């Protein structure tokens, strides 16, 4: 099954990243249409009708989120979440690098729809090259009158600012992003109030992912029904999927939602190297509970993956084949979240820390099967108790690994213990405390 390219149409065409290249392919037509032919409410309802769901992880209807913003004259904001930091996710990077104007046009139209005068692209600090590309493209858009105090002489004002983050996973959480954008420490805020009501600088704020906003011009150009023609009833449209891990052709593939996951992993990405089998796979980034070989025929949709106990998330598939040790994978996953936890709320701060230490012992053979009970129990105590979803993002995959690969954990403990790694003179107490960064 081939790719279905909408966002990725002509993605590798030379010059697409320039305003000329983008316009040659019909670029900024949607913005003109939105300015001249559509009222903001029509824009919003067409986005809602399209069924476009957020591509950043939560999968919430974009149009509905936009409709939560109060109407009327007030300072409202649009934030584009370009802090793509989830292990396994690299789709926004390619979208911004190769087609920045598609995003800029999407931001401008979304700003019109909700009445925002200021739009911010919060891009992760590590994407500095991409930020340069975006900056250049934003400059071109300003020069061409697609952005600014009076866009295309309509009297409408939309300013777009590219803001570079300092490199923290938590700043991809929408409220932490707002705090970071305001110049504060990037910590999640308590919700409610939701950003749609009280977001950036206390004003109503729409926050969407790069891919979500990149879809907007296409929906405006082709209509909601066209968009709904792709995908399933609850998962409309196409999706750029980042496939990585034990596959022969890792990379970004734009697919129509609803095709079997096997098609993506085997058909597009070539599957694991010859002679190996898929053992576990994360269907939606490292924060999604893992699935197994038995789940490969699941249609790749929000609803089918949720039904299987996992999630589509940001659409990043990480494949582990049978050469991969699941306990080590669990440790690596936990370490990442331990390192990235902001420390504001208790279950996440202490839970990721504790879990990492326990998994470390498992891998080194200094644990007992009883510890697996505790690890599983701790994950349960994190899930649903945190201020934001970062804690759950560790607890769900780690919990799923312990549950689904219990035998392997026990075997690992036993093998490592027999190999002598667990001798008393290697007590974990002797080892300095490591943060994720040092450990990784």
């Amino acid at each position, binding site marked *: 099954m081939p790719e279905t390219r909408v966002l990725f149409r002509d993605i590798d065409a030379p010059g697409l990243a320039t305003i000329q290249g983008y316009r040659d392919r019909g670029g900024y037509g949607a913005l003109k249409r939105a300015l001249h032919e559509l009222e903001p409410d029509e824009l919003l309802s067409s986005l809602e009708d399209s069924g476009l769901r957020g591509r950043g992880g939560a999968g919430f209807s974009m149009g509905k989120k936009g409709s939560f913003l109060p109407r009327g004259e007030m300072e409202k904001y649009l934030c584009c979440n370009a802090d793509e930091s989830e292990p396994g996710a690299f789709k926004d990077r390619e979208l911004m690098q190769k087609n920045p104007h598609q995003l800029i046009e999407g931001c401008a139209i979304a700003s019109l729809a909700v009445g925002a005068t200021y739009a911010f692209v919060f891009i992760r600090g590590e994407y500095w090259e991409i930020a340069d590309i975006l900056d250049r493209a934003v400059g071109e858009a300003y020069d061409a009158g697609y952005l600014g105090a009076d866009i295309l002489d309509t009297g409408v004002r939309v300013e777009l600012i590219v803001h570079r983050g300092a490199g*923290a996973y*938590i700043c991809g959480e929408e409220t932490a992003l707002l705090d970071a954008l305001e110049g504060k*420490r990037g910590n999640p805020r*308590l919700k409610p109030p939701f950003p749609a009501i009280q977001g950036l600088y206390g004003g109503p704020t729409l926050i969407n992912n790069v891919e979500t906003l990149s879809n907007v011009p296409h929906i405006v150009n082709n209509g909601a029904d066209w968009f709904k023609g792709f995908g399933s009833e609850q998962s409309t449209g196409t999706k750029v999927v980042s496939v990585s891990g034990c596959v022969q052709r890792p990379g970004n593939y734009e697919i129509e939602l609803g095709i079997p996951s096997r098609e993506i992993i085997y058909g597009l990405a070539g599957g694991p190297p010859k002679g190996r089998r898929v053992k576990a796979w994360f269907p939606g980034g490292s924060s999604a509970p893992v699935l197994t070989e038995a789940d490969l025929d699941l249609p790749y949709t929000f609803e089918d993956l949720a039904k299987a106990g996992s999630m589509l998330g940001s659409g990043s598939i990480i494949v582990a084949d049978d050469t991969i040790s699941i306990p080590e994978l669990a440790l690596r996953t936990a370490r990442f979240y*331990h*390192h*990235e*936890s*902001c*420390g*504001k*709320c*208790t*279950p996440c*701060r*202490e*839970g*990721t*820390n*504790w879990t990492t*230490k*326990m998994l470390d*012992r498992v891998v080194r053979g200094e644990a007992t099967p009883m510890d697996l009970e*505790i690890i599983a*129990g701790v994950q349960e*105590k994190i899930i*649903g*108790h*945190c*201020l934001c979803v970062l804690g759950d993002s560790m607890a769900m995959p780690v919990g799923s690994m312990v549950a689904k690969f219990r035998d392997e954990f026990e075997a690992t403990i036993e093998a490592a213990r027999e190999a002598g790694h667990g001798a008393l003179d290697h007590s*974990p*107490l002797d080892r300095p*405390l490591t*943060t994720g960064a040092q450990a990784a």
Partner: protein
Amino acid sequence: MSAERSKVTLVVDGVEVTADDGAMLVDAAKEGDVEIPVFCYEPKLGGPVGACRMCLVEIEGIPKLQTACSTPVRDGMVVYTRTDRVIESQSAVVEFLLVNHPLDCPVCDKGGECPLQDIAMGWGPGRSRMTEPKRHFRKPMPLSPLVRIDRERCILCYRCVRFSQDVAEDEQLQLLERGASSHVGTFDDHPYIAPFHGNIIELCPVGALTAEAYRFRARPWDIEDSGSVCTLCPSQCNVMFTVRDEHVQRVLARDNDDVDAGWLCDKGRFGFQMITSEERIVEPRVGGSRAGWEAALDAVAERLRSAGERTAAIVGGQTSNEEGYLIQRLLRGALGSANITSVDELEAGLARRLAAPELGAAVPDLDAAESILVVGTDPLNSIPILDLRIRRAIRQGRARLVVASERPTALDGGAEETARYAPGDAAGFLAALAAELGNRRQAGAGTPGRAADEVPGDGSDWAEGARRIAGELRPGKTVIVYGERLGRGPGGDSALASLLECARALDLATAGAGVIGVPEGANGRGLREVGCLPGAGPGFAEAPAGRGLDRIKQGLLDGELDAVVLVHADPIRNLPDGPGWAEALRRARTVIAVSAFDDASTETADIVFPAESYAEKEGTVTHPDGRLQRLRPAVPHPGNVHPIWQVLAELGARLGHETGIGSVPEAVATIAAEVPFYAGITPEEIGGRGVRWQERPAASAVAELAAVPPEQRTSRTNLDRDDSGTLTADRLRLGTYPALWADEITDRNVALRFLAPAQTVELAPSDGERLGLASGDEVEVRSNGTGVRARVALNERMRPGAVFLIEATAAENANALPAELNVEVIKP
């Protein structure tokens, strides 16, 4: 305050509970006797943050557990706090919190009064499954010279950080690192030096922040709490003394939203060591040698009898209402002298008009005011807790702040407008402001936002500043916080008269608006109201004219006065023209001092009575907003210290003037009988929270306070200077100010001494450049042949042409300069 909130009914654990609409669930549950445990929730710090996750509860209709600290109640809400799910989450959070907590309760100061202990016992799993090594930090580290931090005990509720960021706004405390490595600290480990930082100790729900002065001094079962009022400054914060073995070991806030909003400044919190200081005077002295009370009282009685009406008395701000009443009665009744005054002396007519009940604002009025004018005072130095209050009002977005002052204030940063007049020019500035406000009122231009340039001005400097200030003030919705020191000096009466005009032009005699005067002494207002004012008796009753401070000094110098009684007063250090006072006291035939410590003034005294400390005192004081508050003795008197009210009553008796006062309640009753607006007040009515006399029925009996006809438009100050207040290049005009830490309290408390400021001369950078001075230079500030050595501090918010020195420093006191406006700043 806000209008009555409507009520809602909800069900918590099967119990029907009625609570204020909009209340947070955690507070509403208390109405049904349900306790929901919390760590990070503290309404004093602002909105909830939901960080600790301790208060998760189940609410019908919401699938996920919700934080009770951040969920406002709704009618019909059904809440469960003890279901299996909730119990599991509570025990999970406790277990998580203890993952890195050292559980060193047996050696922890917080043990026994520790929320973490209590909640771990009440809601925790009882045992931990954690076997990993815990987080380690160096401990306990000094966070400041007064506070130690033990980061291992910290549970990262970050209340202290929020206090620093959101309440004190000093922004020094930060959460450093992230995740499990998060810890509280300051930039580059600088010590956390800030005037309110002691509050973080009390906010800490574990033993992570401890007071250097209280570490290992007592356990909760050793101590008793004793509520009283701090009289170290006019804030009169409500405090709780922690007493062990008859010694004050600690001072905690006794939250009273009408007074202090639950905060203390560090002076109030750590200024208790002087109570047990070995330097204290603990027995009477006659002629420099120890004496018994009988001998001392006889000696005083004899000297006062011979001095008779040639006696004067100066009462300091720590004096209680009862002491003040009795000393004025001693002078007026027993000696026939009218020369009684306090350090917060005001002209009697002005004092009466400024005390008018409908003009007085209450502290909580600041919360709801639409505009706040701070004029002639820097609250941080003079009434610190109002600084926090005003900051909160601005932060909550309701009030617009304007500041008019000689010297830059700590509140300038949050002000919409600031006006800076030259030292001594307050009268001119306030006259211009009154004229501006009067014009606006006449022009009907008092409406907010009216452009200032629509009102004609005379183009002078004052008029320009006055226009900017006036443009921000909302008629009927403004609170003016003014320094009573505006009333000092030659233009003082005129300045306060103009202030009254401003108040009238702004319609401040309405509910929710008004003025709050900031006295120098803690009980400045009360002392005036009980009659420590020349020309006005208790309740501002007409009284024979007497000498004020300046004329007392002059009388002593000229030999027209024979005796002076100083009660809690050290004029040599604290009043302008210290050298003049020193000379006056030396020449006086008799100086009688009531003082807790030896100072420059007691050195001149013939007879010294030991003074009570505020923790030993029984009586009442009156807050600057008119709230009478009760002082209750927390510790016994040391040595041979007697209650001063008793000493004064006894003295009166020996001089043939029986007061019939044999106890503090009797003194209160006598005052209540004489001060019409205190009528009927009793210690019981005052109680633990105090009562504003303006809000009692008796206040209506003093309509005549306001009925005194306003003086005609006050002419501008007739001081010998050009009207615009601009200064010529070769003249620098000296202003002095009371710095928070420049006083005897700092000197007498070992823990606070490091805060005592060295004399500093502040200059505008342009003046510094002209004179070739840079910050840090050692200079001498000279006037009329006298000099004070100081270090230069250039301050860009200073008005060019003005220089400022600190009053009442232990050395190089600005009060040592003669009362002269023009000075030179020279490099020695």
